[in-house]
């Protein structure tokens, strides 16, 4: 049965219509709201490509049922983190380090790193690698991603 669901996404209150209240957030963001930042990679919370922030925490949207979210919780996607005109420091650092190959995983790398840097001000390289240990990249961009996160941290 179609039903309405209220969410707060990228600073805006939105209402969507869904058939299944347990549909993962990922599909609401991608299909109902036409966002491209969060990506489908596995649907199993294994790769991190779908990562978004919920109240500032990095969350795997592919396994987050809509029913677990209230309209007050702030969902932020890659689009809401920063724009081409007003880049978030992590996004800027990824451009400066050219830390992208195909870029499919990069949403998760940036969202996970931004949440990590918000709580860890002066991380070591090893801490960054640990923070990203559950985000998978197949192209082999890891070394540049670590450099970008170090740069964003001002290290």
């Amino acid at each position, binding site marked *: 049965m179609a039903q309405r669901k209220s969410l707060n996404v990228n600073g805006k209150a939105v209402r969507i219509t869904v058939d299944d209240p347990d549909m993962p957030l990922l599909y609401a963001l991608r299909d109902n709201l036409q966002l*491209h930042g969060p990506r489908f990679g596995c649907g199993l919370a294994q790769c991190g490509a779908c990562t978004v922030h919920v109240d500032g925490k990095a969350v795997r949207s592919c396994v987050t049922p809509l029913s677990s979210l209230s309209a007050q919780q702030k969902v932020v996607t890659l689009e809401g983190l920063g724009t081409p005109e007003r880049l978030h420091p992590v996004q800027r650092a990824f451009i400066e380090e050219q830390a992208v190959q*195909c870029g499919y995983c990069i949403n998760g790398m940036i969202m996970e790193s931004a949440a990590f840097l918000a709580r860890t001000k002066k991380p070591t390289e090893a801490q960054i690698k640990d923070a990203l240990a559950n985000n998978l990249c197949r192209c082999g961009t890891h070394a*540049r991603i670590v450099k970008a996160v170090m740069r964003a941290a001002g290290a």
Partner: protein
Amino acid sequence: MTMHTSRRDVLKGGGALVVSFSFAGNIGEALAQGAKPLTLTEVDSFLAIDAGGEVTLYSGKVDLGTGVATALPQIVADELDVPLNRIKLIQGDTALTPDQGTTWGSLSIQIGGMQLRNAAATAKAALLQQAAERLGAKREELKVADGVVSAGNKRVSYGELIGGKRFALTLDHAKPAPAKDPKDYKFVGKPLPRVDIPEKVTGRFTYMQDFRVPGMLHGRVIRPAAIGATLESVDEASIKDVAGVVKVVREGNFLAVVAESEWGAIKGAERLKASWSKSQTLPEAAKLWDEVRASKVVKDEVTSNVGNSAEAIAQAGAKTLKATYDFAIHTHGSIGPSCAVAEFKDGKLTSWSASQATHNLRKQLATMFGIPADNVRCIYIEGSGCYGRNGHEDAAADAALLAKAVGRPVRVQWSRADEHGWDPKGPPTLIDLRAAVDGAGAVTAWESEFFIPQQTAGSFNVPLVAATLAGMPAGEDIAPGNIFQNSAIPYKFANVKTVCRRLASTPFRPSWIRTPGRMQNTYANECFIDEVAAAANADPVEFRLKFLDPNDKRGIEVLDRAAALAKWDKRPSPRRDQQGDVAVGRGVAYCKYELMRTYIAAVAEVEVKRSTGDIRVRRFYLAHDCGQIVNPDGLRNQLDGNVIQTLSRTLIEELKYDRSAVTSLDWASYPILRFPQIPELVYDLIDRPNERPWGAGEPSAAVVPAAISNAVFDAIGVRLRSVPFTPDKVLAATKGAA
């Protein structure tokens, strides 16, 4: 920059040609007006300049996340003398771009880029000729800057000279037009930032997986429970409660659910009850190598034969070495599972996919549906990186079949299990090697046999899964790529024979994965030469240099420079001075790609923990000579990818399966390398601006497995001959060596 254009833009071809973005749109009309040229022998196939001076490039080679969407315009901007931001690039659209061959084999710059350079140089010569006439000046008086030709104070722009009209000039790629002197380059050779990255880091980029068309439905496939199984029954009532399901599509053994929403399609596919016959076509995994060795040989391909190796080995007094190497079955492992959209309208098919071979896919889809290729248009949209022929083409076939079945455009998104379970695999490779060394340490003979699947009749058609399952024309080709390459060796021994034993079959549908064959073959060759060097008690670098062709100066230089970069510790392997649990070692590997292009040498520094068998790569050094470097930062990015991805394949990856199907269906059962395991990467890029550019997207992957195996041998005196080098195998090999 405006180089990355949306495919929704109206594309301007030569003359007054306007092509809309879908087949169902104006292409018929456009064709009626005289289609945009697509041959490889016309300038207009490759580029157009509009009245405003904007240059459109048409490239059959596509950017798979490798950076060629930046590098190709760099080449043309220099050759035409236009600003980079006045160039836009159309990629892989069968109605608009010439068939420059599949995007594979590290050939996008080497072939695609050089064809574009030739087109640009030819176009520029014609533009200057016209400008000289228009301005009443001599050709040598003309100056060009930013697409404007001047003679004294008289000026004319490219847009004024050609704007919208066709060049109508022919091209001979065997005899290219004189190109610019590399000393005058403004763009080539510079580490310019990639044009796609700002959009990719802000969520503005449209990947294939993001692409939508109006009125589109969502499809999910349900693959057979076992390879070769027959679909016995489907209980459509089992998903009657799933909202939005439009249709269950069943065609032979092809089964899918089409729904209004993506989530509806996912739930429908998960819940649909279907029963399949039992099928056990796969070998017992534990006996894979016995099966490979026992496979029927359809052809022995001799890839090199010098002197008489059999006689030299049989000769008394010669010390003979023998070894067998194997390399596991790998999956492409794209982070984004394959995805495609298709629309059938009036008997014509438009297919949007991330295929690296849209021109070939067009023919395959035409065969599958029994329609003329003229009625199929395949349009490339960049997807998740594919590293070879993964599932993109199969998703395109799935989408086309479903679009036909429901009469509306359909998007098919594979699940993670679809991707791991059903993308074509890198076939298992088994290699036997023998060498004879005389008392003076000279190699008198080298022999090798590579047990690799056949390539049927030169085919690069990997059968489309949907066509096979649905009983539509699919063919039964075996197309693993050019996997014989680098079976022959770069070393000059008196007697050499290398043979590829081409097998009638291989357990999984094969295709090419980054550095196909060259990786497996170089691994065996470069490990075994290390074995021979150790038997001769020689330093591994010195030993290689001794047998390289002395006239092959670039090969010698790349090896010398890798050794210098890594501060190579000259001595025979293994070290015998380490007693503790953790031992360190260094290993070298060398490759001349396909024995005719890009040179690479690598040094790996590893730590091996004897008690656990864990290998940690500390540093990886590469010296790399691909001739003229178009974008050094793009090159470094590609080298990172080659090294890290191949470390993952070498240390960890192995497809698991039972007698019926793949059981590595996610990242837990097919793990790949993670951040904490990434080594420090150190490169020496040898730039040769006056040489032609060669490929760089895969050659350096070839040297990674051997450099690691050789470093482990140096550390602990144990030879690893079975990829992946898992801790279990290290422990077993240690036990065997003791």
